C-alpha cells in the first residue's frame, strides 16, 4: 500500500495550484442577492471550464477530462487550500444530477445537459423532499399523470436549495401506486421555467435565502425527460443519493480540515479577559487536538473510499459512513469555534465571509446532519445494509 501520487499526478497538482492562484475569484460570494449569487457561481464555473478544470473525472465525451477520482481529489485539496468557496449553486448539477445522468440517462439527455452543467450555463436543483415525505422519501405524493407526450405534474416540494435561480430540477414524482411505495416513482428532468411552477424562498437559521419550497400546478414535463425507466425512479434516486453521500462530499471533507487549522490559528491569537490565548485553556486545547485527529481520520477514510471507488462506478452504502462521520465532526468543529470566540460569536456573520464567518458557519453546520438524509437515516442505512441488522 502507498500514499504516493504518481509524477503525473504531482504535475497535475502543480498545474492546479498555479491556475487557482491566477484565476480564483477575489470578491466574496454575494449571499443575499439571489441573482448576483447565480451570476457569481456560474461565472466561476465558466472560468473553471475555460481553464479545463470542469468535470475532471467526467467522461471526455461529455466535456469532462476523463481523469480519475485521484485527480478530482487533488483538485479539491488545492481548492480548499486556496481558501475558495464551495461550488454551492452548481453543487447539484456537478455532484448529483450530472453523475446520475452519466450512469442512467439517454445519449440525447446526456449530450444536451452534461456539457451545459460543466460550462456553467445551468443551475440544477433537487426536487426530492416534500412536506409529507422527508426521511420517508418514498411516500412522496407529488403526482404526474400522462397526457399525450407529457406528464402533468401537481404537488409540492420542499428544502430545494437554489430553486429560485435554477434552470433544471431533478424531480421525483409519483406516476402510479404500485405494490409498494417504492414502485411507481419516476425521475424527471423538470425545466424550472415551465408554466405552473411557483418558488417561495424559505429563510434559514443562518439567515440565507437559498432554500425554497416549490409548487407545481399542472406543470407539463415532456415524456422524453424521464431519466431511467418510468416507475423505477426510486432506484435512480438511490444512486443519486449514493453519489451525494459518497464522492460528492470530498470537497467538504477536505475543506473541514482546512477549517480546523484556521481554528487552531484563531485559538492561538485570541486572548480572553485574563490575557491568555484560548489555546492555553486545557479543555479547548484538547477539543482542538481531538478535532485534528478526527479530520485526519476523515481524510484517511476519504482516501480509502476513493481507492475503493476507482474500481467501481457506483458508490455503495459505505458512503453513508463517511457522511455520518463528516456531519458529526463538522458540527463539533463549528461549535468549538463558538466556544473559542466567546462574545464575539454573537456578531452575525455569513459562512461566506472571508477569512471565516464562524457564527454563520456554526448555524449552517446544523444542515450537515439533516440535509441529504439525516444522520438518523444514515444510521439506519448503515445498520441495515452494512451491518445486516434486522429491520
Amino acid at each position, binding site marked *: 500500500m502507498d500514499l504516493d501520487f504518481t509524477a503525473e499526478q504531482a504535475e497535475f497538482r502543480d498545474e492546479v495550484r498555479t491556475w487557482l492562484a491566477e484565476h480564483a475569484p477575489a470578491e466574496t460570494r454575494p449571499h443575499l442577492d439571489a441573482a448576483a449569487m447565480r451570476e457569481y457561481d456560474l461565472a466561476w464555473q465558466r472560468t473553471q471550464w475555460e481553464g479545463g478544470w470542469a468535470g475532471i473525472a467526467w467522461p471526455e465525451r461529455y466535456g469532462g477530462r476523463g481523469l480519475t477520482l485521484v485527480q478530482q481529489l487533488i483538485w479539491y485539496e488545492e481548492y480548499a487550500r486556496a481558501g475558495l468557496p464551495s461550488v454551492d449553486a452548481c453543487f447539484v448539477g456537478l455532484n448529483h444530477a450530472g453523475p446520475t445522468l452519466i450512469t442512467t440517462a439517454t445519449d440525447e439527455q446526456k449530450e444536451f445537459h452534461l456539457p451545459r452543467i460543466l460550462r456553467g450555463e445551468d443551475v440544477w436543483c433537487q426536487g426530492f423532499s416534500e412536506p409529507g415525505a422527508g426521511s420517508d422519501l418514498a411516500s412522496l405524493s407529488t403526482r404526474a399523470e400522462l397526457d399525450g407526450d407529457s406528464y402533468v405534474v401537481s404537488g409540492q416540494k420542499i428544502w430545494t436549495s437554489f430553486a429560485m435561480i435554477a434552470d433544471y430540477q431533478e424531480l421525483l414524482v409519483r406516476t402510479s401506486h404500485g405494490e409498494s411505495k417504492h414502485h411507481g416513482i419516476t425521475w424527471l428532468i423538470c425545466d424550472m421555467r415551465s408554466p405552473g411552477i411557483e418558488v417561495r424562498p424559505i429563510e434559514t437559521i443562518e439567515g440565507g435565502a437559498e432554500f425554497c419550497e416549490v409548487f407545481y400546478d399542472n406543470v407539463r414535463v415532456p415524456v422524453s425527460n424521464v431519466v431511467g425507466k418510468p416507475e423505477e425512479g426510486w432506484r435512480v434516486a438511490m444512486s443519486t443519493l449514493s453519489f451525494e453521500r459518497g464522492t460528492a462530499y470530498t470537497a467538504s471533507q477536505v475543506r473541514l480540515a482546512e477549517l480546523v487549522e484556521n481554528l487552531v490559528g484563531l485559538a492561538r491569537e485570541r486572548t480572553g479577559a485574563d490575557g491568555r490565548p484560548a489555546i492555553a485553556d486545557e479543555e479547548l486545547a484538547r477539543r482542538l487536538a*481531538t478535532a485534528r485527529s478526527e479530520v485526519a481520520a476523515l481524510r484517511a*477514510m476519504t482516501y480509502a473510499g476513493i481507492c475503493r471507488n476507482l474500481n467501481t462506478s457506483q458508490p455503495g452504502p459505505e458512503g453513508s459512513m463517511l457522511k455520518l462521520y463528516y456531519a458529526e465532526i463538522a458540527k463539533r468543529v463549528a461549535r468549538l469555534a463558538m466556544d473559542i470566540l466567546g462574545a464575539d460569536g454573537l456578531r452575525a456573520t455569513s459562512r461566506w465571509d472571508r477569512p471565516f464567518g464562524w457564527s454563520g458557519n456554526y448555524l449552517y453546520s446544523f444542515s450537515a446532519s439533516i440535509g441529504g438524509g439525516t444522520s438518523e437515516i444514515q*444510521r439506519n442505512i448503515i*445498520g441495515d445494509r452494512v451491518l445486516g441488522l*434486522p429491520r
Partner: protein
Amino acid sequence: MDLLPSSDQLELVAAASEFCAEQLPVSAIRDRRDEPTAIARKLWSAGAELGLLGVSAPEQAGGSGLPFDDEVLLFRELGRHLVPGPLVASVLGARLATLTGHPDLARAITSGDTQTALAQRRSGEAGDRFAVTGEFDLFDATDAEYLLIVEPAGAGLVTKESLTGVTRVECIDPGTRLGSASAGSAPVLCWVSADEEPIRLRGLVLVSALQVGIAEAVRDLAVEHARNRVQFGRPIGVNQAVKHACVDMAVAAEAAWQQTLFAAISLHSGRADAEFQVLAAKSVAGRAAIGNSESNIQIHGGMGFTYEHDAHLYLKRAHVLDQLFGAPRDHLGTLLALEAAQ
C-alpha cells in the same frame, strides 16, 4: 495511491486469524487468570514459528522482510483475537537488535526463544544511550529476558536481571501481567536514537492497530447479539437505540482503521507529517477501542456485566493498550503543538 490490501496481505491475515481462532481462543484468558503468564510459552513459540513476530524484520533476523503495513494488518488481527503477551515490545526489540547489528538477538526474539517486554517509566529522569534509572511499570515481563525502554531521546533494551525489586502487580486485565521494578543505572543495550528511528511512533502505530482490532471485534459481538437476542418478540437490533449504537461503533472502528493505516504508511514512507498522523491514529483508535468496548457491554446487558462473558476482556485490554508509549492526554498536547498535516 493504493490503500486496499493485496491478496498476499489478506492471505497473511487469514493464516494468522486461523491460528488464533484454533490455538488462542479469548476464553483461554479467563482459564489462565491465575497462571504466571497470560499466554503459554508453547503457544508463543508456535505463533512465532508462524511468523507473527517477524513480519517486518529482515530475513537475517529471522523475519519475512515485509513492509510495515503488512505488520499493521497482522496486528489488527491479533487485536481482534485479543492475543496476550508482549507482542509490540518483542517486535520492537527485534527491530532494535537488527538496527544495532545484533542479528542473533533479533533472531532469538522473532523465533520466540527470547521475549522482550515493555518497561514504561513511572518516575525518574529520562535515560540515555548509556543507562536508565528510575521506577518502571512492566507489561507481560514474566518470561522476558529483555525489557524495552522508550525515552524521548531514543529507545534501547535492558536485561531484566539488571533491574531490582521486580514485583507483580494485580492488573485490571486478566490478559495482561503487570509488574513494577526499579533501575539503578541499568546498562542500555541496542540503543537507537529517536532521530535515527522513531521507535515510539512505530510502537504507537502497532498499539493503534491492536486497538482497531478490539474496536472491530466488539462491534461484531454487539451486532451479533443485536441480531439474535430476542425481547418483546423481536431481535433487539430492530430498535434504533441499539441499532444506532452498533452503527456508531462501526463508524468509530472504520475511522480508526483508516487513520491507523494512513499513519503506518506515512511512517514507513517517511512523510514529513508522520508524527501528526501517528498521534491522530492513536487518538482515534484509543477512543474507538474503549468507547466500542463500553457500548458492547451495554448492548449485552446483564450478561455483559459478568466475568464469564468476554465483553470485559476487550474493555480492559483497550485500557491497557491506551496507556502504552505515553498517556493519551500527552499525545493530544503534542498533536496540537505540531505543524498542520501535509
